[in-house]
């Protein structure tokens, strides 16, 4: 069953990657990156559990915490760009 879930996650990663490549808007790509992050957390959690080393769940925890900051950095980037585009 673990293998089925892992395969589903990998296929989803591939689909999200296709969405990131196709675009068309920048928001689609950020969405794909965000999805990718969540799927990586799940993948790492399952593989950590499968390999019998649950102490490696720390890694998934690191992702769960860090992934969000990337999205905020993107927001700040958009904000800064808009802010200075209105410059006379």
């Amino acid at each position, binding site marked *: *069953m*673990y293998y*089925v*879930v892992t*395969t*589903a*996650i990998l*296929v*989803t*990663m*591939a*689909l*999200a990657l*296709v*969405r990131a490549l196709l675009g*068309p*808007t*920048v*928001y*689609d790509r*950020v*969405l*794909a990156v*965000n*999805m990718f992050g*969540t*799927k990586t*957390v*799940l993948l790492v*959690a*399952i593989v950590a*559990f499968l390999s019998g080393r*649950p*102490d490696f*769940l*720390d890694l*998934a*925890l690191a992702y*769960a*915490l860090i*992934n*969000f900051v990337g*999205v*905020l950095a993107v*927001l700040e980037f*958009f904000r800064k760009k*808009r802010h200075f585009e209105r410059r006379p």
Partner: protein
Amino acid sequence: MIVDALSFTMLALGGFFVFMGGLGALRLPDLYTRMHAASLTDSLGTLLTLGGIMLQAGWSLATIKLLTILFFLMMTGPTASYALANAALLSDDKDAPGAPPATGN
């Protein structure tokens, strides 16, 4: 035995929702429908998958770590989706299809 069956059901459903989310994010016609598919299934798939693993792990440090991961993902995932949708809506980017015209904001 019952726990095994329950956890496998949860894992299977989790895998299914994760896959549906990916399919939705790829196939749906515009940004907002895609976002809706991706963010909802993200939360549900995560909940079910991590829940399935938790049932397998039983009461141990692993379960507590998994609960923490789940807590953070449940908190940040919807927030990230909200922030993204908000940014897309407020942007006067004409290439965001289906975006209503930005009103003075």
